[in-house]
């Protein structure tokens, strides 16, 4: 599918009563940050080139002109330092939103994310909270090669103390971010580069998408497709194609990877008896490994009519060449094929 497709957006649209406006994923994120900063002087943004430059992907845009350089804080190229400064600020009354230009560079900041931010509340016996948000774009598709295209959410999901969200629509990008900012814990928000310019209906004003609640943008009887991030819209597009071929798919977008809404996952798996897991991240120990394990050890196990099927990125660094890059991660046609095989063979 092209990145303009908004199937996912519309499917996850808010209740008809809420006022909505069409905006891009990127604008929706900016809108959320603007709203949060207007409400709470403790909220501020910190990161490389988030000021005048407007952010590596333009997400902060012209916020600095509205809010000023004190709260839209340009930093040196020091991911570990920035993250640590976020932790220190969060422990002392502020609510920092730290932007990391590419999620690959969380590697630089891993100590402060995993060993400090995630553990401090527990390790200090509950004496302190670390209410911070880390925003970082993941994913491939821009020809930026192996060090700028990873989908590393699994690293963070594995660390107790972090929450992890992966918005797949503009509305969720806004709603989940506002929930993340409210949250008294460190929350990783993994955005997707290819989604920034996609648009959809976004609820106006100070809205929320609750953490820990999956979206089910489509229901069908033949199989359950569980997908995250960019793969949600691909799954929805695939579902349309499958429907034309007589296969009706339920599509589940967990939205929050941690804490995970396993209730919704298991319910839909039981309903269809077949499950296709789709992630952009490399196959081995990606997020869907956990989803698979949860299903396989649950009472949904007894409802399975077929082995659990995983569709994932190849276990390789993302290559530069466009054709190779595309071949590295699940595309719509791959989902269609995998789903068809699953339903036809079992």
């Amino acid at each position: 599918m092209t990145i303009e497709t908004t199937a996912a957006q519309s499917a996850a649209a808010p209740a008809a009563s809420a006022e909505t406006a069409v905006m891009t994923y990127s604008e929706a994120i900016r809108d959320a940050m603007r709203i949060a900063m207007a409400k709470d002087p403790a909220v501020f943004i910190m990161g490389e080139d988030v000021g005048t430059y407007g952010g590596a992907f333009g997400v902060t845009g012209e916020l600095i002109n509205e809010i000023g350089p004190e709260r839209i804080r340009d930093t040196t190229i020091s991911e570990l330092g920035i993250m640590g400064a976020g932790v220190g600020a969060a422990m002392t009354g502020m609510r920092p939103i730290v932007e990391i230009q590419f999620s690959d560079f969380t590697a630089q900041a891993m100590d402060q994310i995993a060993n400090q931010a995630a553990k401090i509340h527990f390790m200090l016996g509950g004496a302190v909270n670390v209410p911070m948000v880390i925003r970082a774009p993941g994913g491939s598709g821009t020809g930026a090669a192996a060090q700028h295209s990873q989908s590393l959410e699994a690293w963070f999901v594995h660390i107790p103390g972090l929450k992890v969200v992966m918005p797949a629509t503009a509305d969720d990008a806004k709603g989940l971010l506002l929930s993340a900012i409210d949250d008294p814990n460190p929350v990783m928000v993994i955005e997707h580069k290819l989604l920034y310019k996609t648009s959809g209906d976004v609820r106006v004003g100070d809205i929320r998408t609750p953490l820990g609640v999956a979206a089910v943008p489509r229901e069908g009887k033949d199989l359950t497709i569980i997908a995250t991030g960019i793969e949600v819209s691909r799954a929805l597009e695939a579902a349309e194609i499958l429907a034309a071929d007589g296969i009706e798919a339920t599509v589940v977008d967990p939205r929050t990877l941690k804490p995970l809404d396993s209730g919704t996952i298991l319910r839909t798996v039981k309903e269809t008896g077949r499950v296709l897991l789709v992630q952009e991240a490399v196959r081995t120990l990606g997020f869907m490994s956990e989803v698979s394990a949860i299903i396989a050890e649950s009472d949904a196990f007894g409802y399975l009519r077929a082995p659990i099927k995983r569709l994932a990125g190849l276990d390789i660094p993302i290559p530069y060449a466009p054709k190779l890059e595309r071949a590295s991660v699940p595309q719509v046609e791959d989902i269609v094929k995998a789903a068809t095989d699953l339903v036809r063979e079992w």
Partner: protein
Amino acid sequence: MTIINTPIAANPELAASSLETMWKIRRFEEAVEDLYGRGLMHGTMHLSIGQEAVPTGACLALNRDDYITSTHRGHGHCIAKGADMERMMAELLAKETGYCRGRGGSMHIADTETGNLGANGIVAGGVPIATGAALSAKMRGTKQVAVSFHGDGAMGEGAWHEGVVLAAMWQLPVVFLCENNLYGMSMSSEKAFNLEKLSDRARGYGIPGVTVDGNDVQAVYDATQEAVDRARNGGGPTFIEAKTYRWRGHSKSDKNLYRTRDEIDEWRGKDPIPLFEAQALAAGGLTQADIDAVRDKVRTELRSAVQRANAAPDATADDLLSAVYAR
């Protein structure tokens, strides 16, 4: 805290409280060592015996609501900033009444009431956190200052560098206080740095740097007070090197193969406690009787802290999972 213009050793109140702080640290750690040696305490431990003058002098320049970040060798910072020995001991004894409810142990004691954001098991982990606390103070307009205690070894870490880079650029109210005890575990700071004084590194960040005798409470206080004043008045960060020495091994597993008995003995001769006692006697701040009284008071206090901590209930396992996330 108002600035102290008379010598600490000459001021009866300050001299007594400084001496008391040093004794508390010393006695606390001796007790820990003893409990540990007798198998009554578990985990690992990093003792700062011999280094007591640094936190004592530094924290004298701080208000209660100023922040500190500390290290794996953090008992001294914690006590000097005002923490309660009983709750500290309870933590080390894995009690529910400990500062971290027994979840953290020695390497994670924090006391937010007194501005201590925590010991840290990660070398230099607290450095950017102090930068963040200083940023927060500046943004909230509170005039609070943050002191990042760290070792000489910590200066090899990228975290140290990045914390200082950001603080220097933003001219934040933070003091980087290096306790150069001559070794980072077994690596001698002489070998690790091609520098006469570690404070020479500060200039490379465009911030002032100073080296002081870390076994002299007054010298540490003076340098910290100057740095804290500058920070509070918007003058940005300062780096302080306080030269001192750890008498004990790095931790329990240290065989002291990388240094000589002579060197250890030489530094034992520079014990900051008698040094300060002599200064206070000479300056007239304390009499011998005062000195004895402080020592006795600490001994009694510590004994009761250990007893009460021992009597407290063990850390409970029943809410482990629910304790991970704040609500």
